[in-house]
């Protein structure tokens, strides 16, 4: 076992992990942050997407020990006392979810798109950039709308 320490959603945390402990396991099992989901074992579904040092990664395809010293943001780090993050609000307003299983990964990927491509996103950009996020319910239509609306709202705030 080794000790890892990192910043998660602005808070310094540490814990004991095996070498093989995945970052998503550390978040869910050690820290109780169960918003980050696991939907596959092939690194394809994107339900586990979080940000590590400002970039989107699949937390099922990274070891906790690799994130030692990193700055991590999960879905739990977005809302504050004032309410939901504009991107979360946009998913709600646009009916961008049904069962909600894919939603945390979708929202984290959406924020990564905004970071790289700005607030005015056309439909084809959003669809292309969400290639690594699979949804079994919605048919993506409203997710795309939500991401566009959320991006715009973030620009206005």
């Amino acid at each position, binding site marked *: 076992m*080794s000790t890892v320490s990192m910043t998660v959603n602005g808070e310094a945390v540490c814990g004991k992990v*095996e*070498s*093989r402990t*995945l970052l998503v396991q550390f978040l869910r099992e050690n820290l109780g942050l169960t918003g980050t989901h696991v939907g596959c*074992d*092939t*690194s*394809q579904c*994107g339900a586990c*997407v979080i940000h590590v040092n400002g*970039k*989107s*990664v*699949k937390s099922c*395809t*990274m*070891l906790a*020990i*690799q994130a030692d010293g990193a700055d991590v943001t999960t879905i739990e780090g977005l809302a504050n006392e004032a309410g939901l993050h504009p991107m979360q609000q946009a998913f709600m307003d646009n009916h961008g979810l049904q069962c909600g299983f894919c939603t945390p990964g979708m929202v984290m*990927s959406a924020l*990564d*798109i905004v970071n*790289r491509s700005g607030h005015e996103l056309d439909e084809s950009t959003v669809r292309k*950039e969400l*290639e*690594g*996020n699979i949804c079994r319910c919605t048919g993506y239509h409203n997710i795309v709308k939500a991401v566009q609306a959320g991006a715009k709202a973030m620009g206005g705030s």
Partner: protein
Amino acid sequence: MYEFNYRKVASVAAATEAMQQAEDGKFMAGGQTMLPTMKHRLASPSDLIDLGGVAELTGISVENENLIVGAMTTHAAVAASAEVQQAIPALARLAGNIGDPAVRNRGTLGGSIANHDPAADYPAAVIALGATVQTSKRAISAEEFFTGMFETALEDDEIVTSVSFPLPEAAAYMKFENPASRYAIVGVFVAKTGGEVRVGVTGATACAHRGLRLEAALGGELDAGGIDAVELPVEQMNSDIHASAEYRAHLVKVMTKRAVEACQ
């Protein structure tokens, strides 16, 4: 995934030493293939030697008419690099169409070619551009590097340090992608360098290779007129749930024509 010893190293020399000391060690770049493989217990190394902290393995530069990309440079970094976009725009586009954004943020050039998945994109570019793979021990030409399905010329303790791509006059990559994984069902990279036109083919057969029959039909020109008449060995093509051998043979020609046209 079975437990292993995690070894973080800061230099190529330390990585080599760690590998030599390990009973059954493996290098890890971004883990985008290594970790899924270990989860499925298709690999269970005694030691995992993480190259993530080896600064000397990242970076992009242009020197003496060559674009040099460090092995640990991520696909996202290659795609976004102004230097790559200017020197070999087709390579930047190729990197920007590997997998998805999260995979591109971790996956690396060195890991992609060392792994040599028969459906990976980079091998087609390495071959068509006539690149040289620089390792911790030697320089290996593209054609000698890829030896078979998931097989390369690398020795167990040999590390890819960078790849050197001679600057082409024109180049383009076309992939017919699997809609779920984005891996190439067939990918063809065409490059004109020093008056010679080379074709690199991935996804079609067990091993990324030079399309010599296609090159002969092109005869050094970026004119796809002769491609339809080329006969490809269907029996050597991969056949799986994604595409039959006949379909892959057809796709190789279609992708070649599109790549040649995109070069113009």
